[in-house]
């Protein structure tokens, strides 16, 4: 779609499963609210599903002005084609200027299909979104109020700002936890708009036969603080130091692959390329050398503390605070300092 609708709304795809909204949808409502206020337009949430009308309320409470509900038994469970048809039909009808999706496995499946159908640009895994003007040197054109889609690329070695000057809507996916979930304003209300989208039989050719969803035992992604231990911790017994520091800071316990492979802790705690990617406010790396496979899973933490006895350990290349020394001395000092801080508050 090339026609730019300057009054277009800022939309959020309201991902839900089994009658429960995904947290990232609520986080995105908050961000969409900010962007929409800057642009002077409204926030819309698109909610495909079945019997999910009651989910409009939390979307309003987190910043939506309108909720577009597509209620259809064929949308009871996610499959790519029917969901894409629902979202792209509403985009063509209402012409939002921005559409945001959670960068969940579902969002990353759906959003590109919608982008292809609407021929619009899509930027994956944004870590920040802003509104700004762009001067295009090539065409000497000034573009007002574009969505700046900011994301790491090249294995996390560069940060790129992407814009869509001509073809709208401007679409982006954002990982869970990148934007904070704002406090719900239960008094906020909005307009519920019921939409009907025809879903022809040829889109219903994928059938889910069986499904297993793990219940999250630990919430690495959602933690503001992650304290992770590596091979340098030395033993399963000594790993208790890492756990104690995590408790003192109110954070979750993470681990490098080396620590998991050595049996210090369960694989659920693994951070990195083959584990969980975390972007906490604070990441503490205890006795982790910092192979690139680990760094890609944690280097976007807002602040990183690294403790290692090897001053040349690669982990220091991404650390904001580098402590060279024996972790068996330093970690107890940190636990003590963290506890003192709680007492003085």
């Amino acid at each position: 779609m090339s026609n730019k609708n300057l009054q277009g709304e800022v939309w959020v795809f309201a991902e839900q499963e089994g009658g429960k909204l995904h947290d990232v949808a609520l986080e995105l409502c908050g961000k969409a609210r900010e962007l929409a206020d800057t642009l002077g337009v409204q926030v819309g949430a698109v909610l495909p599903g079945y019997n999910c009308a009651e989910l409009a309320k939390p979307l309003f409470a987190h910043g939506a002005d309108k909720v577009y509900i597509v209620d259809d038994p064929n949308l009871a469970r996610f499959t790519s084609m029917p969901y894409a048809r629902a979202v792209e039909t509403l985009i063509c009808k209402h012409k939002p200027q921005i559409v945001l999706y959670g960068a969940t496995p579902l969002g990353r499946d759906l959003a590109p299909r919608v982008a292809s159908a609407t021929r619009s640009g899509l930027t994956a895994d944004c870590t920040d979104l802003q509104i700004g003007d762009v001067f295009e040197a090539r065409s000497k054109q000034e573009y007002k109020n574009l969505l700046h889609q900011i994301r790491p690329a090249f294995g996390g070695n560069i940060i790129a700002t992407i814009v869509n000057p001509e073809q709208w809507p401007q679409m982006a996916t954002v990982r869970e936890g990148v934007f904070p979930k704002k406090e719900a304003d239960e008094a906020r209300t909005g307009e519920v708009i019921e939409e009907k989208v025809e879903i022809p039989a040829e889109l219903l050719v994928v059938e889910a036969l069986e499904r297993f969803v793990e219940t999250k035992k630990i919430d690495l992604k959602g933690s503001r603080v992650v304290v992770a231990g590596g091979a340098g911790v030395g033993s399963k017994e000594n790993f208790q130091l890492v756990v104690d520091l995590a408790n003192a800071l109110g954070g979750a316990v993470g681990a490098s692959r080396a620590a998991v492979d050595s049996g210090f802790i369960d694989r659920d705690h693994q951070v990195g390329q083959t584990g969980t990617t975390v972007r906490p406010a604070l990441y503490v790396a205890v006795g982790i050398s910092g192979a690139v496979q680990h760094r890609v899973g944690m280097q976007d933490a807002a602040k990183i503390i690294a403790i290692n006895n090897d001053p040349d350990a690669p982990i220091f290349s991404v650390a904001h605070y580098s402590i060279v020394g024996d972790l068996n001395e330093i970690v107890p000092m940190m636990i003590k300092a963290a506890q003192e801080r709680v007492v003085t508050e």
Partner: protein
Amino acid sequence: MSSYRSIVLVKQVPDTSKITGNAMKEDGTINRAALPAIFNPEDLSALEAALEVKDRFGGTVTVITMGLPKAADVLRECLYRGADRVILVTDRGAGGSDTLATSYVLSQAVKKVGEFDFIFCGRQAIDGDTAQTGPQCAEKLGIPQICYLTEIIDVKDGTATLRRSLGAGWEVVKTTLPALITVVEEANEPRPQAAIKVMRHKHKRAPLEAAEGETIAPEDQIEQWSLGCIDADPERCGFPGSPTKVHKILSIVLKKEGSVQVAPTEEGVRGMFSELVKDRVLG
């Protein structure tokens, strides 16, 4: 045995795990010459999935890549592992393509290949990690997409039963064919190159790889298609066909400049904590 026609979409990528300080130019852009070019890891998993279908259920494997003439490297690797046919799509007009334009070019190439049962591609490429090109190709071809394949359970009567990852969990789905399937690394262990196939195919080259004045014997030629060959509209390829534009690039390899050395003492640790509280990192 039946005969399932698989098409695999692969990409040659810079090895981003080898990035060091000198891989970034002073202006913050990437010095691609300093990075080895490799077969995108999850595309190797996609090739393996196609070869698995061929081994278990019968059929053929055709591989398509889009890139510079040098990308023929990954096509030779496919031949060494058992692909039947490989095609290089290369054209200056495709340079600067974002995922939307890339999926347009690839889907046009697929249409030229003709009828098929499966398209396999890696979930994502390590240079961008977007995971968008696969689903976008599926949409352009009007076929279902199954993302994050971990296991091919069965293929019969024009359907495939597949296990796919849900991140935290899995799902078994049954789809009609043709379908596009994106494959994750956990799905399989890509087979090694076969010595006999290396011997057979090592002289194969794309016409654009030939040195000036050199001719490649017809039996050694890798098929090479331009945008014209695949009937692609130039307005939907390369820069003109890409709605997303890179506005700005910042290198973060240099990020450690802001790093603070903290003394391994009680004072050092306390000082660091009060700074974190002041910066609102700790509440």
